[in-house]
């Protein structure tokens, strides 16, 4: 018997890269090195083809038409819901709401659940490492309801101070809305523990999974989170599609987020009867083509193998940490024990914007700035960072090129 059959095979990165047509292009005359995956990942050919195929063969409005195209489009659309359900381990397909993205998912909960359940004096807990989209909806809600927003502080390494969190929880806590993985630091937060702590005081928990869904195995039943939101475009899928998972009994108790078509059963001018889950929260014609194509992104992740992707990305992360720190004056921001493949850094006497522009000249795409997490930047007393984030198709060669590029940047700026 061949024992090696039971060991996960190493990824064939060359073959994987061939699935992503954009990786063949040049930028400023140099081969593209795309290291801005935390902002959005590139799309495999099968996702691009699915969008094209849908418009060429099935295009119809879904759920109401009785003609063949409408039936085909509806079936394909609903297949993605089933694929998402198993991807995140949800209990039922009614718990999967399609949105525009993570931001809309969080806003939906803040607007619908929040406005119904939050009262004056209630407390909502977030953390210092939240993206603006997990800050502003709660600020608006707290302002409107005279509720209190509390913020979990973090350590210099970029980890939540869990003792402080536990001390914040109390009878007034109604909701904890926490980022699973920090977009700016890469920190993986211990959400399972945080959820159980919050539930112990009767609070609900919303998890912002924008960065985690692509890197970690998500099992919403195991986490026991009440809401979980993420975006397709960070998971090799199309832009304009997101998912909000919510526990069924919660979603059923919540008023609709937006009114319109699709979300109703009967409308008269006296009264409207809302549709059942999940359609109650999907007012208007959804982004049909991109939802359908999203299934192929999930299929790509599944066939490539979550565990193999994770091992590859962790390998890249460790390599990047070691190699980047060899550069004089470079400091990595965010050194949590548990991290995904995101490396934020600053270089003394080099503004992140200059780093970004000069790397772009060399065909290297990374993100610079405050990463929509200004409170976090203030916490570290920096205007922003440069951030390299790796996906399944990235290689150690590309990290070497980044390091070479940074040496050049330092030379130019000195």
């Amino acid at each position, binding site marked *: 018997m061949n024992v090696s059959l039971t060991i996960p095979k190493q990824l064939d990165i060359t073959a994987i890269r061939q699935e992503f047509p954009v990786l063949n292009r040049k930028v400023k005359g140099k081969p593209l090195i795309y290291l801005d995956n935390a902002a959005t990942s590139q799309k495999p050919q099968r996702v691009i083809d699915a969008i094209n195929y849908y418009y060429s063969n099935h295009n119809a409005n879904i759920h109401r038409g009785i003609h063949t195209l409408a039936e085909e489009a509806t079936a394909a659309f609903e297949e993605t819901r089933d694929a998402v359900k198993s991807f995140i381990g949800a209990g039922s397909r009614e718990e999967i709401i399609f949105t525009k993205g993570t931001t809309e998912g969080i806003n939906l909960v803040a607007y619908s659940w929040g406005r119904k359940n939050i009262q004056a004096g209630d407390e909502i807990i977030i953390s210092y490492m939240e993206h603006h989209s997990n800050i502003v909806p709660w600020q608006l809600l707290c302002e409107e309801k005279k509720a209190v927003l509390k913020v979990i502080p973090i350590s210099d390494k970029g980890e939540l101070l869990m003792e402080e969190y536990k001390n914040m929880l109390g009878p007034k806590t109604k909701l904890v809305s926490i980022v699973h993985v920090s977009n700016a630091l890469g920190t993986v937060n211990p959400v399972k523990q945080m959820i159980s702590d919050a539930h112990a005081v009767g609070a609900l928990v919303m998890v912002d999974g924008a960065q985690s869904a692509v890197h970690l195995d998500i099992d919403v039943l195991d986490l026991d989170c009440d809401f979980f939101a993420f975006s397709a475009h960070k998971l090799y899928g199309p832009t304009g599609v997101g998912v909000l998972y919510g526990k069924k009994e919660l979603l059923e108790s919540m008023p609709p987020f937006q009114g319109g078509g699709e979300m109703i059963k009967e409308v008269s001018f006296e009264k409207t009867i809302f549709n059942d889950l999940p359609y109650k929260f999907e007012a208007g014609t959804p982004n049909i083509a991109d939802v359908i194509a999203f299934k192929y992104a999930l299929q790509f992740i599944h066939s490539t193998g979550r565990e193999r992707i994770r091992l590859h990305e962790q390998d890249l992360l460790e390599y990047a940490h070691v190699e980047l720190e060899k550069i004089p004056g470079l400091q990595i921001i965010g050194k949590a024990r548990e991290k995904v493949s995101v490396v934020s850094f600053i270089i003394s006497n080099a503004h992140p914007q200059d780093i*970004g522009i000069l790397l772009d*000249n060399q065909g290297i795409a990374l993100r610079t700035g405050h990463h929509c997490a200004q409170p976090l930047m203030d916490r570290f007393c920096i205007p922003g960072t440069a951030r390299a984030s790796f996906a399944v198709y990235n290689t150690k060669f590309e990290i070497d090129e980044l390091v070479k590029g940074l040496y050049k940047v330092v030379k130019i700026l000195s």
Partner: protein
Amino acid sequence: MSPQLSILETEREIIEEFALFDSWDDKYEYIIDMGKTLPALEPIFKTDENRVRGCQSSVWLIADYQEGKLIYKADSDAMIVKGLISMLIRVLSGRTADEILGAKLDFIREIGMTTHLAQTRSNGLLSMIKQMKHYAIAYKIKDPVPSKN
């Protein structure tokens, strides 16, 4: 002192200087060098009020009015942006409000810096030009017929 070149002549001069470089790195090194020649702005001027909105880096811009002409001073904490603004100052500073408002600044395109004109949050060149023109409008309203007093 030789007479001051016109806006268009200055633009042409910059285009000719950039024609000497064929790599992007060289172009940017030149921009950074130009930034280094820009005198630092005194800290008292580095206020929120003087900050140009819409830049990923901090840019401060002020304008004086002397003998009917606007004199710009600026600074930034990022070197490329400082270089870009020093180029704008070279072209627009010491001109009348009308000259500044009429400037099309085509040289930016000609030297390949259009990416910095893009409407993204990270590129502030457009905001800088807008701010410079706002100063020109403000002084034009204050002093409709510039007197060379």
